[in-house]
């Protein structure tokens, strides 16, 4: 159960925010106010007592076939049946000809690395991972894909062939896609 995105993120957030919350409780108990002096600047600060938690719910209803594809280990894109425009990320609507009739196709298995970075300072919600490589890969289908690259970054070069994988991400256990040198 430890290698799941939900409890990994929760653990990090607990680590980040539990201690300050305890301090806030103590502060209010002792002084009657959520107020303290910033040790660096000496400025008087009021700590917000109304915490706001954000977790969004996004509609993937119109790209349900994309979700089905992930389940089957496939990465799908859309092609406008009227004008032939190709979309990755897949779009349900074609702004070029205003049609909403899409064909779903599977992406090619191999592309070419255009550029990449290593995320060293990670967002809190990703801090349970070791430094990860994010790359942009040019696909022969006529679009690029942004995803993680599973490789030693020192071995990467522009133009390198990259194979697409769709599977449960280790350590997070939900299905997504990434690249590996082909």
């Amino acid at each position, binding site marked *: 159960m430890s290698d799941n995105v939900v409890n990994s993120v929760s653990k990090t957030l607990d680590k*980040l925010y539990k201690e300050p919350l305890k301090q806030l409780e103590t502060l209010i108990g002792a002084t009657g106010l959520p107020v303290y002096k*910033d040790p*660096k*600047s000496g*400025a008087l*600060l009021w700590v*917000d007592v109304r915490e706001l938690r954000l977790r*969004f719910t*996004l509609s993937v209803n119109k790209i349900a076939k994309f979700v089905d594809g992930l389940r089957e280990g496939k990465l799908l894109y859309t092609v406008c049946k009227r004008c032939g425009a190709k979309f*990755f*990320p897949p779009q349900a609507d074609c702004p070029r000809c205003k049609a909403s009739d899409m064909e779903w196709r599977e992406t090619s298995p191999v592309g070419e690395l*255009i*550029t*990449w*970075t*290593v*995320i*060293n*300072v*990670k*967002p*809190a*919600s*990703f801090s349970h*991972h070791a430094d*990860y490589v*994010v790359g*942009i890969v040019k696909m022969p289908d006529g*679009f*690029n*894909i*942004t*995803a*993680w690259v599973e490789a030693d*970054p020192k071995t990467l*070069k*522009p133009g390198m062939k990259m194979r697409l994988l769709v599977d449960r991400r280790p350590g997070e256990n939900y299905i*997504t896609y990434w690249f590996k040198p082909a």
Partner: protein
Amino acid sequence: MRKVAVVGVGTSKFGNRTDVSLPELAWESVKEALDDARLGTEDIEAFVVGNVGGWSSEMLPAVVVGEYCGLVPKSGVRVEAACATGSAAVRTAYHMVASGESDIVMVIGVEKMNESPTPTVVEFIGRAGNYFWEFENFGLTFPGYYALYATAYMHRYGATEEDLCKVAVKNHYYGSLNPKAQFQKAITVEECLNSRYVAWPLKLYDSSPITDGSSAVILASEEAAKKITDTPVWIKAIGYANGTANLSKRLDFIGLEAAQIAAQMAYKKAGIDPLEPVKYLDVAEVHDCFTIAEIMAYEDLGFAKRGEGYKLVREGQTYIGGLIPVNVDGGLKAKGHPIGATGVSMIAELTRQLRQQVEKSRQAPIRKGMALAHNIGGTGHYAFVTILSLS
């Protein structure tokens, strides 16, 4: 369309401003701008607030700032265009005056990023792209987006991490001469090279900081401007464009297309030859959120040929005395980058440069009377190029 002038400017001290609330921070620059124009709040007909927020407590910053600064019941709205919010606010106010609707409008850029802990801010700015396809599944960060450009640029043209650090060294040098800058300490190339990676190949010293700050400018019609000041600084042109949300949809990663389009638009409106813009300009402010961004800006603006921007900084051509002085207030890198205030502070700085009112050690020689501000939102998601002129 009527001519529009900048008639008053103000900028707060940038930094970690635990000593003031968001509206108090706004007031610092509002008061300075009003004093500069010798106007009172009653003279302001409308106002535009540039603020991105999310990391700060106020949901309705225009309303809170309007009340605190005594501008109610004058109409004020908030404008947002990521890190180019300030320029978008200036553009909005410009149109309010140019259209003939208002004679005197104030722009107030204000940002209080330190109301949230750093991890929250990192989380928020990492979402400055396309949420699901870049952040939710791949955890890109703001330095990460620019690092994708840095990797491609360095491979293509042979620029080095040392070249990038030279941008940081220049901007820290000028920051050390600007009393309002967040960082007032010069740094060396070695210190920069030895700083830790935040998103390889970008390091901590390649990156602008998390900043609280505000800046305000007062715009006026020609008739009003001539009553207010002897040295109006005219907004000659504003160019603008957007880029795709997903970086994967960009053609290449060696420059920002939106910035190139915005520059061409501004040059055309201002009568500047796009092949030789430096011949027309005394000084420029460019968007150096990361060092690679300043190098790409040189090329996107036509200060250098494509692939040769890093040579300008290698040769020191963007210091005072070089081809064109750039970011002589410290830039985003050392002056600081309070997201919604940055674009406004560029206009405030250039106005004071053109009036020859900045600290002597960092005053660019003013011979042609024109200056340029290049302000980017996100990673080339928004671009604004604004040309200011003494005539």
